């Protein structure tokens, strides 16, 4: 089972994740996704762990996650059908060895896809071999030991064997493995049919342990999902135990209808497994919304300090695309804090900066002395959050393709740019706080220009972020580079006049020069960050966008061209 999981994980680099994203917007879709994916992968544990990591990364809502888990419970029953219908009739051990040989050869290949195929082949090989040996084993001591002698009848037996099934699944961490064991034991009549049913019910509860362990490292939504999984399986088990005799009758009727022989207990167990899980879904589906609401009410997010990450969780590290998405969202979260700090450093409220008001007006009304402590915020929020992102990215990098590694590298660099922008704002704030209240009107005006320029950068970034799907929006960020260069050029000219006409002192001009440099760096860092963070298309589209965006020399060239054009236009007019 472990090898099979490993194999499917190799293919989760995009395919499963993009499928999951597209197929979970409606309840019936998420249910079907759970059924189909678990039937294919033959592991409800893998599907539930992937779902938890998706939920923790904020990619799907809790209701969709619960739908998948419900579906995966039904999907996992196909395993019983396969083993009972195919595994015991055909001599599958004949296929096991070739599968294992080719599987092992493929595992040693370099390509991720081939390696994944190797793990799947190996996993199936081991499974087939295991079924064969278990059957042989049970048959070997059939004549000497009769396990049916330990069979317990009635309700005590049901409870006892349900507990045994639960324990076995907890130890093996796979309900599928327990079911294989139950079916093979049943096929050689080492356990009674009634006790086998109870074992299957127990295995169904035991399988939630993997999801619970997987949710430990995740956020509150992951834990809510694991809890929903437990509630579903517990309720289903209680109902199945309560109505076990009615269910057995129903199984007999369904089996008769399907043409299954009355003494074919293995297939009848598969029918029972599907029937009671289907019944569970029918029973729980009407209460799904209330269950989600109940879980949201009961399991509250832990009170966290602002510096704690929201989207990074251990479960996402092994799933490449989810790891990238989680890192991206966390870096976005980091930027949200940084934008507030930068606005605060300029003596402005972020809400005002991002509002529809003209920025001149926003600046004109913000005349209070700037007392915003950037250092404190940097230490309390930015530093801690960024170090968590860096740690997560370093851990996730081991299992990625070169392209995905580049993407993560770009995100880490984006985080560093945010950090730099905050630090530069801190340096800028020292003089800005002083000069925006200076009696000299000229220097006040210049520093307010810096505030307007940086506030417009924050505003533009927000606009681009809102329409991140469009390549032209992300590329329009280059306009900020041009604007900043232009501002620098104009400031140079203005400063010459101001000094010449003695309207500002030499020390003021030095501060202004230094601080306009900081403003330029803040813009540069934020634009570079936004190029990596705000484009949301495919990785290759993002790469193409990045390659087209203008570098510093090209921006200079563009400015030069526009100046020449303006001059010639002016000459024509005069």
């Amino acid at each position: 089972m472990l090898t099979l999981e490993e194999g499917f994980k190799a293919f989760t680099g995009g395919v499963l994740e993009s499928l999951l994203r597209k197929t979970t917007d409606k309840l019936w879709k998420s249910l079907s996704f759970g059924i189909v994916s678990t039937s294919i992968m033959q592991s409800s544990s893998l599907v539930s762990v992937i779902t938890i990591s998706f939920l923790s990364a904020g990619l799907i809502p809790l209701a969709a996650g619960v739908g998948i888990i419900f579906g995966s419970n039904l999907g996992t029953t196909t395993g019983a059908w396969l083993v009972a219908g195919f595994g015991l009739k055909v001599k599958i051990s004949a296929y096991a060895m070739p599968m294992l040989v080719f599987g092992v050869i493929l595992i040693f290949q370099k390509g991720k896809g081939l390696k994944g195929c190797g793990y799947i082949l190996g996993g199936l090989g081991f499974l087939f071999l295991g079924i064969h040996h278990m059957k042989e084993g049970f048959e070997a001591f059939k004549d000497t030991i009769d396990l049916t002698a330990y069979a317990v009848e009635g309700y005590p037996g049901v409870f006892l064997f349900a507990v045994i099934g639960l324990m076995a699944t907890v130890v093996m961490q796979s309900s599928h493995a327990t079911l294989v064991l139950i079916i093979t034991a049943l096929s050689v009549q080492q356990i009674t049919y009634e006790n086998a049913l109870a074992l299957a019910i127990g295995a169904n509860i035991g399988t939630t342990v993997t999801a619970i362990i997987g949710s430990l490292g995740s956020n509150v939504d992951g834990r809510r999902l694991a809890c929903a999984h437990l509630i579903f399986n517990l309720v289903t088990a209680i109902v199945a135990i309560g109505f076990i005799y009615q269910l057995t009758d129903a199984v007999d009727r369904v089996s008769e209808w399907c043409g299954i022989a009355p003494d074919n207990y293995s297939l009848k167990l598969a029918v029972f497994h599907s029937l009671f899980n289907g019944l569970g879904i029918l029973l729980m589906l009407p209460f799904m919304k209330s269950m989600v609401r109940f879980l949201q009410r009961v399991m509250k997010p832990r009170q966290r300090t602002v510096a704690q990450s929201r989207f990074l969780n251990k479960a996402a590290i092994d799933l490449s695309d989810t790891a990238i998405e989680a890192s991206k969202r966390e870096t976005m979260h980091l930027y949200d804090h940084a934008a507030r700090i930068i606005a605060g450093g300029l003596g402005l409220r972020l809400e005002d900066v991002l509002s529809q008001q003209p920025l001149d007006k926003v600046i004109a009304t913000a005349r209070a002395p700037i007392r915003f402590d950037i250092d404190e915020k940097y230490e309390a929020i930015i530093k801690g959050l960024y170090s968590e992102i860096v740690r997560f990215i370093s851990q996730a990098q081991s299992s990625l393709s070169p392209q995905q590694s580049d993407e993560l590298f770009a995100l880490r660099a984006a985080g560093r740019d945010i950090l730099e922008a905050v630090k530069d704002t801190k340096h800028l704030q020292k003089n800005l706080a002083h000069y925006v209240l200076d009696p000299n009107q000229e220097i006040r005006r210049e520093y307010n220009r810096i505030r307007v320029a940086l506030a417009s950068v924050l505003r533009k970034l927000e606009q681009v972020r809102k329409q991140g799907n469009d390549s032209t929006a992300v590329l329009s960020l280059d306009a900020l580079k041009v604007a900043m260069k232009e501002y620098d050029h104009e400031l140079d000219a203005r400063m010459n006049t101001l000094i010449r006409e003695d309207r500002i002192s030499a020390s003021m001009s030095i501060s202004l020069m230094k601080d306009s440099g900081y403003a330029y760096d803040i813009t540069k860092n934020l634009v570079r960050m936004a190029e990596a963070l705000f484009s949301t298309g495919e990785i290759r589209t993002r790469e193409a966008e990045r390659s087209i965006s203008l570098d510093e020399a090209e921006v200079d060239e563009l400015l030069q061209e526009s100046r020449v054009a303006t001059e010639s236009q002016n000459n024509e007019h005069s």
Partner: protein
Amino acid sequence: MSIRKLLKKAKSFLSSEERKRKEKRKFLERVIKKLKKHEKNLVERVKSEHDKNNQSKIKEEIALTHAQRKKGLKMLKKL
């Protein structure tokens, strides 16, 4: 199709470098197409805009988009 042609096709299909190059081209072309459409829209907008200030802003954006498109086309030629 001659065997030589078939072999050539198979070789280019199997060569990862060639595949990567083609893929890069495809995505670059897509972005350039979007930029072209955007530039066209901006040109239409500047014609209907009466405010001088807004007009010059749109013109700046046109120049920028044009420069990006030119850069993209240059890269496309190299690929």
